[in-house]
């Protein structure tokens, strides 16, 4: 138990510090690297809670795909970050005001929950069965109870794909494309001409 507590506090601290560093780092590449750190320690927290499947997903999907994609975007796009920060001082007061109000509200809620508990009558989430793995538990409901939502989520991705194609794909007229049938249909007769060149004249074509 003591080991778990130590692991929890260690990873929770790292998550929060890395999260802060994401926002405050001057170099955007550093921000992305701190983001990866935050994902890793959050994955550790999930493992502590017994949700090993989500922990692995976090590492595979967020670290492996999303964060690397961010890194590509940050490195490949020539974004002038000093220009982006230009309006920072101007909008700081209103930003601080909104953030302050939200923080105060969250603290009030947190204190309230700590004193009175979340809610008396709520349904508590069930823990997964000890002899069934996470993946199997998710699999049991994903394609039965939640198949409707699962398919709809697939359609959301389809819309994103159609959108990306509609907005960016351009068919250029003069572009040269490979046509395999045309290549296979070539014979010496169609692909080649024999020209009889007289000495000293060259080819005019």
């Amino acid at each position, binding site marked *: 138990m003591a080991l778990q507590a130590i692991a929890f506090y260690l990873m929770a601290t790292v998550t929060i510090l890395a999260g802060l560093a994401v926002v405050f780092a001057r170099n955007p590449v550093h921000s992305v690297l701190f983001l990866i750190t935050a994902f890793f320690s959050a994955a550790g927290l999930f493992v502590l809670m017994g949700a090993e499947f989500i922990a692995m997903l976090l590492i595979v999907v967020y670290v492996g795909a999303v964060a690397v994609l961010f890194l590509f975007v940050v490195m490949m796009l020539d974004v002038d970050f000093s220009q982006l920060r230009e309006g920072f001082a101007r909008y700081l007061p209103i930003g601080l005001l909104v953030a302050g109000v939200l923080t105060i*509200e969250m603290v*009030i*809620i947190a204190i*309230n*929950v700590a004193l*009175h508990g*979340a*809610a008396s*009558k*709520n*349904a*508590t*989430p069930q823990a997964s069965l000890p002899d069934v793995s996470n993946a199997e538990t998710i699999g049991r*409901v994903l394609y039965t*109870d*939640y*198949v*409707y*939502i699962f*398919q*709809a*989520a697939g*359609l*959301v991705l*389809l*819309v*994103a794909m*159609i*959108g990306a*194609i*509609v*907005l*960016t794909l351009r068919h250029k007229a003069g572009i040269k494309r490979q046509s395999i049938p045309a290549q296979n249909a070539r014979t010496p007769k169609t692909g080649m001409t024999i020209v009889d060149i007289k000495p000293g004249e060259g080819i005019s074509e």
Partner: protein
Amino acid sequence: MTHANLSLVGPEIILAGSALILLVVGAFRGKGGVVFNGLSVLALLAAAVAAVVGPQGRGFAGGVIVDDLSTFAKVAIYLASAVSLVLADRWLARRGDSKFELPVLVILAALGMGVMVSAGDLISLYIGVELHSLALYVLAAFRRDDAKSSEAGLKYFVLGALSSGLLLYGASLIYGFAGSTQFDVIAGAVNDGAGQGILFGLVFLICGLAFKVSAAPFHMWTPDVYEGAPTPMVGFFAAAPKLAAMVLLARVLQEGFGGAVAQWQQVVLAIALLSVFVGAFAGLAQKNLKRLWAYSSIANIGYALVGLAAGGEAGVQAMLMFMVLYMVDVTGFFACLTALQRDGRSMETIDDMAGLFKEKPGLALAMTAFSLSALGLPPLSGFFAKFYVFKAAIDAGLAWAAILALVGSVVAAFYYLRLIKVMWFDAAPGAVEAPAFSARTIAIGAALFSFPVGLVALVWLDPVSRAAAAAFG
């Protein structure tokens, strides 16, 4: 079990299937065309029929609720989507921007809205919202070579992503404090007053949905998006998605948080009255008609929210009646804008409309009818829409809110009347081109609905909407 579940989502299956088939057909043909658009319209009509004749009930572990309310909303949404496709066909073809993806995206948006109105769970709520809004972002930017259209799409996308974040944050708080994502279980957790944590989440959820219906203070995107997006698509944005989000809001509030009416009523009322006044006063300074009707739609969402804030069956019925009658007005108005063109340029400003009555008396009369109806002048249908809302508010003891909303609509009268004055009495600067037949027919049809067909339809709409509102029981 599975069969019963699947039969509940018949309209969704029809729409998803036809969207996929049309997408493949379009990808192989490489272009759309009138027949392609006609097939898409047929798919939407088939889904509307399937929604009416299909069975009712709950399925997929509470993720889907099919009742009178969802059927009512689905039919209205599918019909409005079909009308917008008919309008878009000629308009885009004239500008050489006709693409086969447009009907596919409209069908997928309609599918998302259908998921929204029959959501019984926070997850299906979110998926529905995302499915329809992603399609709408693309539709807003559809004329990608037009700078304003691209700006509209980008603004809509960035602010929409922000609002989705708010919505998800709220949903996760509600899940954490209520222990479930299903509306009926949440209702059990709040049946005698919600705790602070749940309320905190609910406020975020309301903010996220208020963005989708463009209620103040989450309305900033509306004028820019309406100005830049293709005109027939603006008519679509202003009608169907608003109804879907309003029905969703009604379901969340009445079904999930029915026990905490006193707590959310003030939030909804504040948003409603703010929308009425922002829409009325900011509209005064507008010169572009699309921006003007964006502010008008903000104000009108305010009235619908007043009806919702009244709570109970009467409040929901008032909201439904208001939204459906308003949808006809706004679709008709944008059909007029779609039809009108002078010297190869769309007529979009108030000054462009000068002398329209001498040029095109039919369309000018139709636009007059829509403006007066949106203003709420009897005997046009808009009057009855407002009548329902104010009656529900007064019966619920919110007479002061009804009076404030009435003041807002008097202020808004100025811009509707100015448009009418310009159309009827100012001199025309040049000849208007012949309008497309489809847009003209839809405009005149919608105008006839505003008066006098709407009055007859009210006799039929009233019991139907009452039955739909009674679904909350």
